[in-house]
């Protein structure tokens, strides 16, 4: 017995003039399976919906086609109308006869409108109902890393009531916060003690992840600590492994002096300079100091911030002459322009040059030559200390971490693929997040915003302990699956795993929690074993069948 299909045409309050609705109703009534066709002028308003519900109940219609405006704003409302009328919300197919038919073509478009309805009718005939269900998720969070962003994330997560595990590969927490302490008066000690005293946070130091399996709400992580291995379950994973800096001189040959070995000279990194500022027992206070940045790495927000802070501190403490060599001063972070102005007011000299300066040694002092843009001629300067340019690189464990979690990295090796839909802290795998230095060159303000964003995202995902999903929206049929692993390799969200089914065969299983319903696996499966409800091959081919065969 043919399934009963109800078609609801809407002439948008009479405004759609280039479709002859009477002829359309006659033609649509002839389509196989269509039991009732009604024309209304306000389907998106309350009265239109009431009429629709009564018609669905009256004629006990099993499938609904709505030919009206774009599904953009109406589809979810109409699904609720179907639910109210006692029909499964998924048994709806829409034909866009306003935005993509009446408004974009002049002249009579009745024939196209009827064909669009026929395509929707062919599709709706094959649609199957779908249930929604709340699946339980593990509420524990694993935070990888032990620095500033990791510890603060753990603290804020515990304040929102979520248990976290801090995984630090070094023996102690709080690495890399010297600059925060000296410039912003940040107290690492109090942060670490707050972490230790907090009962919601479990700290595992000198521990590393060796294997990560599972998916959002159910990650199984194998952790190696002092020889022993433990297996733990987590709902979400936050990577806060930070960054590392490397003196540009070592990696940039053209900055190196032609022949002399310059390692003996006073060339330091920002951090070393910061410690020099910190210890008062310095034997000779440097009189002239040179800074360098933005030559080999033009994405240098962090180094610019560190340079300005160090320069101001050195000016106040030692009153020494300070020269900064750079290409462009990167001031596009909060408060940087003020800092830049303050530095110039205190007498720090900024020399901008297109080509990187040449560095040579001259009787124990560092000689820097560069062609300044404003003067138009070479500036030669001998200084006691040179704070060389630093390259901002991903932390060294990043390579195997990204293969462990099989997540993509951006063109410079930092976590998080360069895709705007992942910003600010997301990854292509649901439940895996990145914050702070490990995802790119971020200044302090952006790191703090990252921390609060990830707390919000994790809270939204895990706090209720369950996630509402559509059951088996994309399903691999165990009988047809030949376990060729193509879908597992192809899935951009890592939502498919090999699973042993009733003890015998290993087949691919798509997890409803992690699946983002894109359909790439359904298209590539060589055994056509994966069914994507609503967009199955039959449903797409049925729409093609309906074209121009009136």
């Amino acid at each position, binding site marked *: 017995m043919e399934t009963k299909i109800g078609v609801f045409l809407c002439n948008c309050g009479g405004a759609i003039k280039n479709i002859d609705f009477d002829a359309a109703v006659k033609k649509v009534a002839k389509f196989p399976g269509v039991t009732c066709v009604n024309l209304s002028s306000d389907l998106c308003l309350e009265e239109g919906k009431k009429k629709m519900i009564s018609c669905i109940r009256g004629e006990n219609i099993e499938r609904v086609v709505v030919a009206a405006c774009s599904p953009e704003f109406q589809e979810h409302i109409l699904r609720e109308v179907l639910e109210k009328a006692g029909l499964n919300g998924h048994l709806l197919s829409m034909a866009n006869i306003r*935005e993509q038919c009446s408004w*974009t073509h002049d002249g009579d478009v009745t024939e196209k409108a009827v064909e669009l309805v026929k395509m929707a009718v062919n599709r709706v005939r094959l649609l199957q109902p779908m249930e929604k269900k709340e699946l339980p998720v593990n509420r524990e969070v694993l935070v990888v890393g032990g620095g500033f962003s990791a510890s603060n994330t753990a603290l804020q997560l515990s304040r929102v009531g979520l248990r976290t595990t801090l995984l630090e590969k070094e023996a102690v927490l709080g690495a890399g916060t010297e600059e925060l302490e000296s410039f912003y008066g940040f107290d690492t000690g109090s942060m670490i003690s707050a972490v230790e005293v907090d009962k919601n946070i479990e700290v595992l130091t000198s521990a590393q992840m060796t294997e990560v399996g599972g998916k959002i709400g159910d990650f199984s992580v194998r952790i190696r600590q002092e020889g022993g291995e433990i297996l733990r379950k987590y709902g979400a994973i936050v990577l806060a492994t930070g960054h590392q800096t490397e003196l540009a001189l070592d990696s940039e040959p053209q900055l190196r002096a032609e022949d002399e070995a310059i390692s003996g000279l006073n060339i330091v990194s920002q951090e070393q300079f910061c410690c020099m500022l910190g210890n008062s027992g310095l034997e000779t206070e440097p009189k002239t100091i040179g800074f360098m940045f933005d030559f080999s790495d033009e994405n240098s927000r962090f180094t610019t911030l560190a340079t300005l802070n160090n320069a101001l501190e050195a000016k106040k403490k030692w009153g020494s002459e300070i020269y900064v060599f750079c290409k462009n001063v990167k001031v596009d972070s909060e408060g940087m322009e003020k800092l830049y102005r303050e530095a110039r007011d205190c007498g720090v000299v900024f020399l901008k040059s297109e080509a990187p300066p040449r560095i040579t040694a001259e009787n124990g002092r560092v000689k820097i030559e560069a062609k300044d843009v404003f003067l138009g001629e070479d500036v030669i300067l001998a200084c006691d200390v040179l704070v060389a340019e630093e390259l901002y690189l991903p932390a060294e464990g990043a390579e195997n971490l990204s293969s462990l979690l099989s997540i993509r990295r951006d063109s410079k090796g930092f976590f998080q693929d360069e895709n705007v839909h992942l910003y600010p802290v997301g990854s292509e795998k649901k439940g895996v997040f990145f914050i702070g230095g490990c995802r790119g060159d971020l200044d302090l303000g952006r790191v703090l915003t990252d921390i609060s964003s990830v707390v919000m995202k994790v809270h939204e995902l895990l706090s209720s302990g369950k996630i509402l999903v559509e059951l088996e929206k994309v399903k691999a049929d165990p009988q047809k699956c030949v376990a060729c692993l193509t879908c597992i390799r192809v899935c951009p969200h890592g939502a498919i795993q090999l699973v042993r089914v009733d003890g015998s065969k290993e087949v691919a299983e798509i997890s409803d929690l992690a699946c*983002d319903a894109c359909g790439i696996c359904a*298209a590539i499966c060589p055994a056509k074993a994966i069914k994507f409800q609503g967009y199955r091959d039959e449903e797409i081919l049925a729409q093609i069948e309906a*074209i121009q065969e009136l």
Partner: protein
Amino acid sequence: MNGCIVAFCCEHSAYPAADLAGKLRLHYPENIRVIRVPCAGRVDVIHILKALEKGAAAVLVLGCEDGACHHITGNTRAKERVKYCNMLLKEVQIDGRPVAMFNLSPNAPHKFVSAVNEITKIIKESGR
């Protein structure tokens, strides 16, 4: 199905762009039929071949911009499949009917209209 274009439109980019073209009342030729897909990566070679078998004058796959796909690799997959499909058609000496992939974003209705116009011009020239 004389001179009809079948267009697989990705739900995240091409379909909203087509809606926007409607709201801006941009006009484009009428012989296009849009099939909504969740991602350009959902379109399979068999869908394109079946559309051509049914007599479509051209098949378009419209997905997100390169590097801005909601599902990261959806649009690159679709580009590979369209290339494979063109190779299959060249094997059987049917290359009069274009199978093309276009990238656009949801707020670029003009790209949708220019894609449709371009393909219609190609069809008219080849006298399908």
